[in-house]
């Protein structure tokens, strides 16, 4: 299992955001995480990428206990994931290509050895002519695609995206979605938090599942889309 939650709850003080979540996600699966604003989608994703730890229950990520994990181990597990957030989190003082290559540097790899791969990745997300630009010079969609390229440059097993199409038009959203489905076809486990119904519809015909966050519960829909 890539992810395994057993009776996981998370509270902020007296307020319980997620309660008694039981869930397993198989390798190579694609999931949409839905729910109204404030339902706890982002909180759930933050637990997945270990920015938050459960208040109670057991959470296993890549088979490792993530509940009381050390900071160093958490960083090690994060290197096996790619995370794309709505605001992209690109470093403005670096070029697009440097941003894409950043996880390689973090992993201690020599970026020069991967130059061709990085450029191919840039072309894959449609940014081959914008690789030397700085993030502030890019459109929202371009920034989002750069963030996707950065998230997969180390070929992670799990890709997590939080509202990746929140700031882009429908055409760009479709293009971004196609990148995620392609990643899934390559065997990556993909989790996308969204309340964009069109985005989910565009995944019809793909073996995608819906996880609905409601009243602190994460409910898996019975059937694939």
């Amino acid at each position: 299992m890539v992810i395994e939650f057993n009776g996981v709850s998370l509270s902020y003080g007296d307020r319980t955001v997620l309660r008694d979540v039981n869930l397993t996600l198989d390798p190579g699966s694609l999931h949409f995480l839905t729910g109204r604003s404030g339902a706890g989608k982002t909180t759930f994703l933050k637990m997945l990428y270990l920015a938050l730890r459960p208040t109670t229950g057991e959470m296993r990520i890549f088979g490792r206990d993530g509940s009381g994990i050390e900071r160093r181990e958490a960083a090690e597990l994060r290197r096996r994931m790619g995370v794309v957030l709505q605001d992209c989190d690109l470093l403005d003082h670096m070029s697009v290509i440097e941003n894409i290559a950043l996880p390689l540097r973090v992993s201690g790899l020599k970026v020069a050895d991967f130059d061709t791969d990085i450029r191919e990745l840039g072309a894959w997300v449609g940014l081959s002519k914008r690789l030397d630009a700085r993030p502030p010079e890019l459109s929202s969609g371009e920034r989002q695609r750069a963030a996707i390229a950065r998230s997969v440059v180390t070929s992670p097993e799990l890709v997590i995206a939080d509202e990746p199409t929140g700031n882009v038009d429908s055409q760009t959203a479709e293009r971004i979605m196609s990148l995620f489905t392609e990643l899934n076809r390559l065997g990556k486990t993909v989790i996308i938090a969204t309340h964009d119904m069109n985005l989910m519809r565009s995944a019809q015909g793909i073996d995608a599942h819906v996880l609905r966050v409601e009243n602190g519960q994460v409910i898996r829909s019975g059937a694939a889309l």
Partner: protein
Amino acid sequence: MTFRALRALFAPTDTPIAPRADFIGGLIALVAAAMAFLAVAATEAGLAADHIAGRWSGELSASATVRITGEAANLPATIDGALGVLEVTPGVAVARVLSDDENRALLAPWLGEEADIAALPLPVLIDVTLSGAGPDVEELKRQLALSAPGAIYDDHGEWRAPLLAAADALRIAAGVGVALTIAALAAMVSVAAAATLWSGAGVVRTLHLIGAEDRFIVRAFERPFAIRAALGAFCGTLLAWLIAARIPQLHAVDVMAGSASQTAPSTWWLLPAVPLVAGATALLATRLAAAFVLKHSE
């Protein structure tokens, strides 16, 4: 630190991960320069005091004086008696009576060159040059009492003790001064590093998100601080060193002793040492501050 680490520190090939912080970096360089200047000034002063005290103490301990007072009629016999005892005492190399000219020279700073010292009731002084560990002072005093009543042996201990105490105090003051300047530099760099990390929270968040460990983030931020602290400290050190080299008063006592620069302590080693210490201090301070900030950033 390996050559590779040094090269990565001073000549990184990739774009720095931490955003440029020129203003804070400039402040760090300025503070490092000021702190280095003060540290070098304190060290120079401490070394000069130590050197002078050491020389004086050495000279005083290598010689002694026998002072003879009494009735003028008895003086020749007492002098002969004293010289006789000193000649056969182990640990005494030379013993000689100071001439009138030498006595006049000794009193010149107070009475002037032309003073008629013959009219003054001055004691006769025998200058004793010691050898090896010196004489058995108690035995020598006993022999002088027998052969030259009125002769007083002075081993200069009364002069040496306060001199050594003053030198010790100066050494301690210099050491405390250097320690305080290092602490002040560390504090300043810590505050600057913490401020930079807090203001660069977005960068830290991104780095965490892509799996960077704390030590990777710390390294990304510590490099510019360490380099600026080292460069600033080098400028401050150079300035202080040049000024110290041009102040003759620092070695005034040596000059008076007629042996100025041959024996003055060499302080060239401060030029590489102080910037290195400043850079290392900045590295350590950044690491500690960053560890604190990162621990509280999630």
